[in-house]
């Protein structure tokens, strides 16, 4: 078993609402895996099931080769978690919380702790009640990064951080990866996932929509083509795999499926091309396409 997380057909209902509706998720050991979805897609519910805090109504789930519900305590020795909305004990200082979390996880590396505090510019002497959301997040992040664990589960970890701190966070994640740790990173910030993740899973309304490396996903997505033509290209409109075709004088724009590109280029060549721009899809476009598709 070389998957850190393997979920298969997870179902979870809250009353009338189906939070998870057959969700699949596989995180390979040693990879940084992006877990993408809009708010309310079921990311946090999935993570809570992974952590044994909720029990799935259906489907199978394995965490680090074990059952997250029955073996929670043992499995938790091997992971660290940063919640999306970090709430801390108002009367404790940040330093106290970091040490508490570190101790219950089996010890912190004090040098790493000091280094992280400095890099995140966090004052550990302040009481948690006066920390901002970003600072509370930093407390949980420092405690997680300074622990010696196999798996990091991070739920929208940068939602309260400023861009400078986001860069520090990115460095930390890449360092974890170099040290061979697995990271599950849930997010709706696509640029973050793009720079950090080896593979991503996209979910929507409790279902997995897409999973694979960014290259795989791009392959599935449409390339946008802009060209200035010399002559007319009447064949384009009827080609399969061509969408949103517009002609503005000699200027042509369209979206093209990956496997239709050859045919499109042949058609363009026949008409004669003055300029040609093709753009790979951004993750935003991937995202939008999946949601539009499902909304229809």
């Amino acid at each position, binding site marked *: 078993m070389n998957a850190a997380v393997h979920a298969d057909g997870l179902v979870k209902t809250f009353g009338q609402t189906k939070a998870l509706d057959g969700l699949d998720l596989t995180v390979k050991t040693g990879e940084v895996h992006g877990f993408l979805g809009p708010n309310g897609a079921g990311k946090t519910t999935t993570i809570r099931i992974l952590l044994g805090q909720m029990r799935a109504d259906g489907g199978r789930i394995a965490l680090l080769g074990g059952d997250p519900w029955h073996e929670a305590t043992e499995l938790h020795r091997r992971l660290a978690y940063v919640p999306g909305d970090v709430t801390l004990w108002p009367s404790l200082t940040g*330093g106290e919380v970091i040490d508490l979390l570190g101790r219950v996880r089996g010890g912190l590396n004090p040098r790493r702790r000091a280094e992280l505090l400095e890099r995140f510019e966090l004052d550990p002497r302040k009481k948690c009640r006066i920390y901002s959301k970003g600072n509370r997040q930093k407390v949980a992040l420092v405690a997680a990064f300074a622990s010696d664990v196999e798996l990091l589960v991070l739920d929208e970890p940068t939602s309260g951080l400023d861009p400078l701190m986001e860069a520090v966070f990115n460095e930390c994640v890449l360092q974890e990866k170099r040290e061979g740790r697995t990271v599950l990173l849930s997010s709706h910030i696509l640029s973050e996932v793009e720079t950090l993740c080896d593979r991503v899973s996209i979910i929507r309304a409790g279902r997995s929509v897409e999973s694979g490396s960014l290259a795989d996903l791009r392959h599935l997505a449409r390339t946008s083509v802009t060209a200035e033509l010399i002559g007319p290209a009447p064949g384009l409109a009827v080609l399969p795999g061509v969408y949103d075709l517009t002609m503005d004088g000699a200027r042509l724009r369209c979206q093209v499926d990956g496997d239709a590109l050859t045919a499109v280029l042949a058609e363009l060549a026949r008409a004669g091309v003055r300029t040609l721009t093709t753009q790979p899809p951004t993750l935003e476009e991937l995202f939008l396409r999946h949601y539009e598709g499902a909304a229809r």
Partner: protein
Amino acid sequence: MTGTWALIRLIVRRDRVLLPVWIAITALLPAGIASTTTDLYADQAARDSFATVSASNPAQLAMRGPIYDASVGGLTAWTLGSSLALIGGLISILLVIRHTRVEEETGRRELLGSGVIGRHAPLATALAVVLAANLLLGLLSVPALVAGGLPAGSSLLFGLSTAAGGWVFAAVAAVAAQLTASSGTARGLAIGAGGLLFALRALADAGGIGWLAWLSPFGWVRLTKPYAGDRWWVLGLIAVFVAALAAAAFALSTRRDVAGGLLPARPGPTTGTLSGSFGLAARLHRGTLAGFAIGFGLMGVLLGVAARGLDAQVDTPQFRELAATIGGTDARISDVFFTFVMYVLSQLVAGAALVSALRARGEEAAGRAELLLSTPVGRLRWALSHLVFAILSPLLLLAVLGAAAGLAYDGDVARVTGATLAYLPAVWTVVGIAMLLFGMLPRLAAAVSWTMLGLFLVVDLLAEFKLASGIVLDLSPFVHVPAMLLRGASSPVAPLLELTVAAVTLATAGLAFLRRRDLMPSA
């Protein structure tokens, strides 16, 4: 004050069940008591003799104060005056804290504050709603009293006095909410102040130090003397006091930041020594527990002092007869007094124990349990670290109460402490019920547990006036505790053992449910 109206609607929406239920019950009680008083004591002679007996019972004096007039109205005002102030005060405190400090602590205030809402609006609206609710229940009680044949003017004064009791504690809570950043501490401060003020009034009336009653709002709500001379001006005194406290609360709130307390936050330690869920729980419970211990210690001293003089002061055949009826021949009148008072105080101790018992749920609701339980700390271990404090806190508080009262009373600490500790299994049963709710119905656990404790208090009152049958009364675990100070008390072992077994069973079931259910943060 922009946004006030929207906030008022928010509060009313959130408490759309609690407010009407509380208002309806409190508004109906006076007419109910008046009508039973009429039924039970048909003529003036019967009422006079009842009044003479009651006025000779120091426990009654401590709980309710003196009877100013033995008419139906006078007896109704005497029966309910203190109790309604106690109930209305408690609910007002809980409501004001819930809509001020809790909102800040959870960050919801920040969300609203970023909208178009004036700086003072949250405090102003919370106070406005609670004051209006108290006024409404006071006014609503009047028509039924008048329909029952009581004078309209006095009935209105009685209704307003009831409202005034709630007003005072709403204002007390408004100040407490500014002083500390933690809602638990704010609640504790306000309830503690209420407890001490009640004890002060009890000392005044049972100890025969009449002027002391003027120092307590529980004295004021009786000193308006409805149906016994109608001193309207006392209402003015209360209004001035409420206005002063409210002004202080607003002044304090302008001096602090949102979510901050008045006390400046000093930098704390860089590193921590907490090594697990138990250490964390100890840290979270210790402040509240110390506060409660001081409060109950002071209350014990007050009671001991009040009881000390009783035997010599009131050694008449009438008293001895009363003591004998309740406690058997040779019972000391002061022991009878203690027995009554302890019965009520044990329920306050149960309130303190509930604070500890419900803290685990508070941690879960706030989302802090989610973080801790993502570590190797298991659920059972986490719940037990908090439960230990719910088990030990009533032991400590009952012991402190008994020891302080015993020292101040006759020096026989062991005897009085034994009597207070007899209530431990009953308090544990309340803790057990809270644990069962925490396991089964976490979202309702706090509301249901507190309502249950409130009902135990109300049931006592109803049973005393024969508005509820003995079977209903038997539902309260406190009824089953033997009165250890009185001779002729049945063997203490069996009922105490039964209650302990019930408590352990309930708590165990609660923990079993907790292990099987999903974690439920409130967000």
